[in-house]
């Protein structure tokens, strides 16, 4: 049945839905680095009845701690019938709910949540430790950046002379050390992703940060040694599962020894800084 102008519009929209579906299926099948066009809700196709499309317009906001999976992000803006204002934002701070033009506070909150989640997964006991690949899937480098800078600042503050050099040395050793340790694992034939490992080694610095802060406040050498010992073993315990499962069991010691060495030297630096 055809009604004047309504049927052709519906037909072409229907075929557009089909071709969008095909695009998604193709892009998912053909793997990495594909572009997924996202449409803003201002598109006239937003009025298509939901029953004809497989996408559910339920989640208008991305979940804070989940991966940014491309499929829901693609689907939601096309067919969302939600109360989002029309049109792309002309002002950067009050945009409609769209993945590409989401409110900036959402992005900030999502990143902060991700840092907290990663910290919790790496450093504190949790049931996911047996499957390390899954635990730090959502790596980020903000946490490590803050921890390295914080450690450098604390060490530099505790030092009474040569403050700048202490900071520069601490930062360079930690950054270069993380990169070299990752290369070490890769060269040993291990299966680890570069940035994931950098992120992990950075997050494992958190206990040493706490140790350095406590040592800054106290001054007795014995107490410092105890604190550094405790925090060093905590850091090593945190780093152990990820590093050891990345390489074959014969080479586990070869991969783990440099990590312990780096943390021990940072611990000695914390004790020795005066």
């Amino acid at each position, binding site marked *: 049945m*055809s009604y004047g102008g309504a*049927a*052709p519009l519906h*037909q*072409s929209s*229907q*075929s*557009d839905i*089909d*071709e969008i579906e*095909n*695009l998604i299926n193709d892009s998912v099948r053909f*793997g*990495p*680095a*594909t*572009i*997924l*066009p*996202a*449409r*803003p809700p201002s*598109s006239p196709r937003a009025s298509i009845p939901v029953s004809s499309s497989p996408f559910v317009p339920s989640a208008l906001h991305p979940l804070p701690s989940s*991966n*940014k*999976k*491309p499929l829901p*992000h693609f689907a939601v803006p096309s067919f969302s019938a939600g109360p989002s204002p029309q049109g*792309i*934002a*002309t*002002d*950067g701070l009050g*945009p409609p709910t769209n*993945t*590409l*033009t989401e409110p*900036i506070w959402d*992005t900030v909150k999502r*990143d902060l949540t991700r840092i907290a989640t990663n910290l919790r997964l790496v450093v504190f006991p949790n049931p996911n430790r047996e499957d390390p*690949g899954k635990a730090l*899937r*959502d*790596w980020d480098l*903000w946490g490590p*950046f803050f921890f390295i*800078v914080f450690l450098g*600042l604390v060490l*530099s503050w505790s030092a009474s002379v040569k*403050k*700048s*050099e202490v*900071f*520069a040395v601490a*930062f*360079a050793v930690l950054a270069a050390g993380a990169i070299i340790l990752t290369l070490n694992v890769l060269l040993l034939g291990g299966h680890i*992703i*570069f*940035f*994931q490992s950098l992120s992990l080694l950075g997050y494992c610095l958190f206990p040493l940060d706490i140790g350095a802060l406590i040592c800054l406040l106290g001054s007795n050498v014995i107490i410092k040694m105890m604190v550094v010992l405790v925090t060093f073993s905590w850091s090593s315990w945190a780093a152990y599962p990820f590093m050891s499962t990345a390489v074959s069991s014969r080479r586990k010691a070869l991969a783990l020894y440099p990590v312990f060495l780096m943390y021990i030297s940072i611990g000695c630096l914390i004790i020795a800084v005066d």
Partner: protein
Amino acid sequence: MDRLQPPRENYANPKTCFFHVFFKAAALAFYILSALFFNSFVIIFVVTVLLAALDFWVVKNVSGRILVGLRWWNEINEQGESVWKFECLDQESLARVNKKDSWLFWWTLYLTAVAWIFLGIFSLIRFQADYLLVVGVCLSLSIANIVGFTKCRKDAKKQIQQFASQTIASRFSSTLQSAFSVV
């Protein structure tokens, strides 16, 4: 600098453009001028690198999306492999992107990297290894953004072409269908 004053045709997102330029300029200015005021390398390092990191975040998450409609990120999929994902607005929205906005976006991106390279050469000539560290960090952040967005734009163009040709093909076939169904 002319870029910051509103010209005859307006920028569509003046606040975003301002922040896009602000953090870059602040990092460069602080690095260059701080030698006059501060003796402490630590402060220079921390503030410059912090500003550069904030700039990286702003460009990647905010101004990239709003000014040119592109976004890139890295994911680790089920098999444990690292996958780079790119996302862009559809063609109508991309065509609607303000020309001045995108001109500003790309040019400041490239110019900042060039500026950091110059500063790196200066500190290399003066044999200041610690300042070279600062420049190295800021430069790698700029280059990461440039590479990410350039790849994203190339993929966006390719995808749009594909999409356009598919749309034309399917519209053609659906027109044919409707023509025959009416008959």
